[in-house]
């Protein structure tokens, strides 16, 4: 089974005159690394938002076609339900930061996914170590550089 499947996806943002994505089809297999290239405004971020369920749930708009992630139709599964399967790093990571300290910031996602409380600290440290950011654990998120924030 494909990890993600996009089938004839067409999407326009609310009140937009132009269509952002037109008839896009894509199949992602487990273990694959895929790069999506395109000019500014060509819909790369919108496609990623569709895979995360943020399009159409968060943004609204006109959506046709079908997007499936891990066997779930994104029109039925909300972004919060897909969290844990799909993770996004947006263009400006500073806009994604919820907490003031790195430790709590990483724990925030684990808490939302229902990780057992005693396991959160260990998983948080392991996640930071996997991206070489374990030395940042005590730091304030407002003091991190752009690159450090992306890793967090």
């Amino acid at each position, binding site marked *: 089974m494909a990890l993600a499947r996009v089938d004839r996806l067409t999407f326009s943002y609310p009140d937009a005159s132009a269509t952002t994505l037109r008839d896009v089809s894509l199949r992602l297999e487990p273990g694959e690394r895929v790069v999506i290239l395109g000019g500014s405004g060509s819909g790369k971020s919108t496609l990623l938002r569709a895979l995360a369920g943020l399009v159409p749930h*968060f943004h609204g708009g006109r959506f046709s076609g079908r997007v499936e992630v891990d066997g779930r139709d994104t029109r039925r599964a909300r972004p*919060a339900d897909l*969290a844990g399967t799909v993770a996004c790093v947006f263009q400006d990571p500073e806009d994604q930061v919820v907490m*003031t300290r790195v430790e709590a910031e990483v724990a925030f996602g684990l808490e939302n996914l229902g990780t057992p409380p005693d396991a959160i*600290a260990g998983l948080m440290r392991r996640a930071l170590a996997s991206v070489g950011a374990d030395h940042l654990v005590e730091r304030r998120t407002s003091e991190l550089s752009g690159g450090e924030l992306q890793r967090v």
Partner: protein
Amino acid sequence: MSPVPAAALLGALAAAALLADHSAPPAAIALVLLVVCLRAPVRRRWVYLAGALLASGSVLVLSPFLQSAGSHVLWSGPIVPVLGSLDVTREELVMAAMQASRLAAVSLAFTAYALLLDHDRLVQAAGFARRSTLVVALATRLLPTLERDAVGMLEALRGRGVAVSGVRGRATLVSPLLAGSLERGLNLAEAMEARGYGRPGGTRLPKPRRTALDGAALASAAVVVVVGALWL
């Protein structure tokens, strides 16, 4: 000290300043809070301190002219339409000092909360009102973020050869800063949803254990409010 007792103590000091009937206790509370706020890094504290002191200073200077109370006239000014006579009486000065010191105490309590408390642990400790606490923590973070955005915007303008100076020049930044913060709020909401916020079955990091100092701070907070209501 844990952030919850610290926040309770700061709230109690602000409440005591508001409940006091004389100007000396709020002024003393404001002074204590000012000393506490000076522990924050200079780079972060100056905006908050300048705002708190400017607001309370304005109340001290302007309110005697805007109210009409008391009979011990210290200075007689002209009669201004709408405002009436611009006399300053001893009673008006006393009231102005009290209002200014109350405002200073409340704003400095907020400054200490914003600059010195660990908001993450506050959210973590919130048992029954986690969402509201998270909203307050996010709103508190908005101030330093706005400050950083303003600095970035000033740098960008200078890089394009536009000199921004004076109050009027800086006032032109307000509109783009507000628009930017609204967009930032939307992006944050989107990111929170993508990270599973609001999904049923969420858990929390275990709360840190409460120490004797925390207990003493909570008890002191209660005492401060009672003293403020009954004796100050």
